[in-house]
């Protein structure tokens, strides 16, 4: 498969991908306007896979949405420059700069003990996801 055809294949379906990422990041569907901005931003920033494993990873996530939390965790550690991570961060930035999602991003005071417990819990969840993600990453980047 040529680089161009890889790019064309992955560029298709950005709406579905944006919706998937939004649900994953903030638990809600992104509004249509934001999905359009996501697709435009992917194009403007040229966030298309340059290498076969990157393209395979994106395809895998689209076919198996339930693998996203694990693979996101894995690429945060071993493939930090991957297109999957870049696109997740892009969606995060777009969500952060919207009125509807503002409260998901603005700090919320809670007691010190509660905050420390929350940090510990999230760190533990992150570590578990990373372990799982590292196990399936070779499969996801193998492609066809």
């Amino acid at each position, binding site marked *: 498969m040529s680089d161009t055809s890889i790019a064309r294949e992955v560029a298709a379906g950005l709406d579905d991908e944006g919706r998937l990422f939004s649900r994953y990041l903030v638990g809600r569907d992104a509004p249509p306007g934001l999905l359009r901005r996501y697709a435009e931003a992917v194009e403007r920033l040229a966030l298309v896979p340059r290498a076969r494993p990157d393209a395979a990873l994106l395809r895998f996530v689209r076919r198996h949405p339930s693998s996203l939390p694990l693979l996101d965790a894995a690429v945060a550690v071993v493939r930090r420059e991957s297109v999957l991570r870049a696109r997740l961060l892009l969606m995060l930035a777009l969500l952060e*700069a919207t009125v509807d999602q503002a409260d998901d991003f*603005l700090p919320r005071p809670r007691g010190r003990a509660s905050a420390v417990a929350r940090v510990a819990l999230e760190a533990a969840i992150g570590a578990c996801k990373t372990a799982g993600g590292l196990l399936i990453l070779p499969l996801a980047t193998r492609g066809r």
Partner: protein
Amino acid sequence: MSREAEVLIVGSGPSAVHAALPLVEAGVAVTMLDVGNQDERYAPLIPDLPFAELRRSDPDQHRYLLGDDLEALPLGSARVGAQLTPPRSHVLRDVAGLTPLVSATFRASESLALGGLGAAWGASAVQYDGRDLAGLPITGADLAPHYEAVAAGIGISGARDDLLRYYGECASLAPPLEVDPGVVRLMERYALGRERVNRRGLYLGHPRLAVLSRDHDGRSAQSYHDLDFYSDRGGSVWRPSLTVERLLGRASFSYQRPWLVERFDEHPDTAAIVVRARDPGSGEAAEFRARRLLLAAGTLGTARIVLRSLGLYDTPRPLVSNPHVYVPCLQPGWIGRPLASRRHSLTQAGLIFDPPGGDGVAIYGEVHVYGSLLLFKLVRESSFPVPQALRIVRELLSAFVILVLEHPDEPAPEKSCMLRRAGSGGKDELHVDHREPASALRLRRRTESALLRSMRRLGCFPLGRIDAGAGSSIHYAGTFPMSADEGPLSVDRSCKLRGTRGVYLCDGSFLPRLPAKPLTLTLMANARRVACGLLREVR
């Protein structure tokens, strides 16, 4: 096109406007030449609301938070200048194309904006003392009246605390800005353990900022809307454009844009200096004539103009720039606390590391909180899955501070710039080589470690260290150093370029070395000193 003035000033940054001010006030005909890029897109979009309120109410916030061209979205490694948000992106606009710089070791930031780099500066305004000026044919006493005059004009806030002896006395000093509660706690811990950490060389206090804590000269006091990285509404933070505005009210002042100055020639038979400039948009050429020329185009911009004018291609010139690192830190005792509703985005506290037996200030530091910048930038640096990283960052935000540390820089053979002639139709390129000798690098790391040990004692724990690379401090100097000796390519104590009849260098070019402390206030005071000297000469 040809125009005449008594004095031509190139650039509109902090030095340029403070050179212009005394001349114009004395009635001297001054023409300021500038490319003068401005933000014509974002400023009108930004509501006058506190940052958190704006985030909950403005449907167009993505335009200025992320940028219409997604300027705020480099998704790779950390970038220089967190304060260069989309509304500030005009500050660096056109630089790569019009004033190309080539380097594998140096990350320079230059500006062709109205106000130059001062259009986005962090407003730290501290003085140099006798130790900082050692070896120069000028002293602190020469600069003292000019520091006072500049401070009285731009409005400086701060406190007379432990940092006074490093920042310098300032008669017009206004009270300090309000401080974020997390940093108040750090200062309280410092007050409790002052003797112990002072013995190790650490001093902490309120920052000295060119930001108004009370109304001044038609400008409003800080609004605490936490929008200082986005908007200049009210004029609380001094920007050079405020002084240009004031100068425009004077008949003897003329601001000419958009002109990119290329070279000057001193006429052999008359006293005139001819300055050749080009409109970067249309390509139209113009000549301006004057009896005196003040170059304040920034150290790198001025180097281009001087070297091109004198035909000194491929001639290395020294270049110094403060090494600059970020140290994100956590104050565990402040986790889960509420953020202040009234905040500003600039330096919350200042620090100086002056270890006993050392050779002066080893590190100048600033304590920042992470307020009005988006969280995705912090999430990007994390190794956790994105949703977990976001939740962790949110919980820790109130306890999170960023230390910005700057070291002194001395000239060395490995630190230089030179102008290379362009090929046909191209632009001359400034080539910069700036490598830190290994021994200096080791010393720098050791000094930082000693400082951070003291910070731990104050309950402030470093999480990492980000070295943004040489040039990232955006402080440049050393190209045409001031000396008492009659050396070539140097300036005398009046900042006149030796070998010329009337060309003066009014930016960082004249400083042979950079102390750890930021240079901007000194450049402003020195530019005023140069202009006052010139005034005596032309009158």
